[in-house]
């Protein structure tokens, strides 16, 4: 029988791949994809807990707000990436070192 822990494991795997994507990729757009993976993992957790733990629908409402924030985040992040491309002619994150980070 499929239970809560199955969803939690899927979500943990999705989260781990997202972290790996953010840590290892050079391309800024690829890092953005990793962040989307992490947000999806969090959403999956919320919906699973909403079904199996509380039996209320509040978790799904929270997931909707996360989707809204993710949409806003994607728009602003892509605006920043386009702006970076215009200045540096590259979206390689290693080249965004003006602040000596």
């Amino acid at each position, binding site marked *: *029988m*499929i239970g809560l822990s*199955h*969803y939690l*494991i*899927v979500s*943990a*795997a*999705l*989260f*781990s*791949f*997202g972290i*790996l*994507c953010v*840590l*290892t*990729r*050079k391309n800024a*757009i*690829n890092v*953005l*994809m*990793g962040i*989307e*993976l992490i947000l*999806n993992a969090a*959403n*999956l957790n919320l*919906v699973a807990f*909403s*079904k*199996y*733990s509380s*039996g*209320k*629908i*509040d978790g*799904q*409402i929270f*997931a*909707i*707000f996360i*989707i*809204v*924030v993710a*949409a*806003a*985040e*994607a*728009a*602003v992040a*892509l*605006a*920043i*990436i*386009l702006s970076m*491309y215009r200045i540096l002619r590259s*979206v390689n994150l*290693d080249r965004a070192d003006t602040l000596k980070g």
Partner: protein
Amino acid sequence: MDKNLLGQIVFYFFAALTIGSAAVVVFARSLVRSAFALLFTFFGVAALYAYLGADFLAATQMVIYVGGILVLILFGVMLTHKLYDLNIKTGSVQLIPSTIAVVAVFAFLAFFMLRTEWFRGDSVLSGPTTASIGNLLMQDFILPFEAASVLLLLALIGAAMIVRRRSE
């Protein structure tokens, strides 16, 4: 075939689709291939939502992630690289130490997720959810709902501000 077994097969299929395409997102050499693998990840997560009985969220996931965010990401890929160049390569850095750290994180999470005895409510959610989500958004969650609309407006204006060409 037993209905229970069929449900398990469907779950494992979509879980494998989600995790497998997430792996392709991380390890693909081509950026465009990465973006299309992300499509299957979003689709798999939407199917898992449907499996969890969250029908409204599954539809929202399809519309917003697949129809909105993925198209936005593909626009980003096409605007920051040479058009018609479908073999956009991208490299990885520090793959081995990151992989070790991430495997450790996953083992930690999985260990505690399996070990913890989660609180089980006596009622399990069932039935269509759209009407109750609408009622909750208009009654109990009206303030966060309005705040989200302001946030979206701010993001719209902010994104347009950041990318506009400054005329000297």
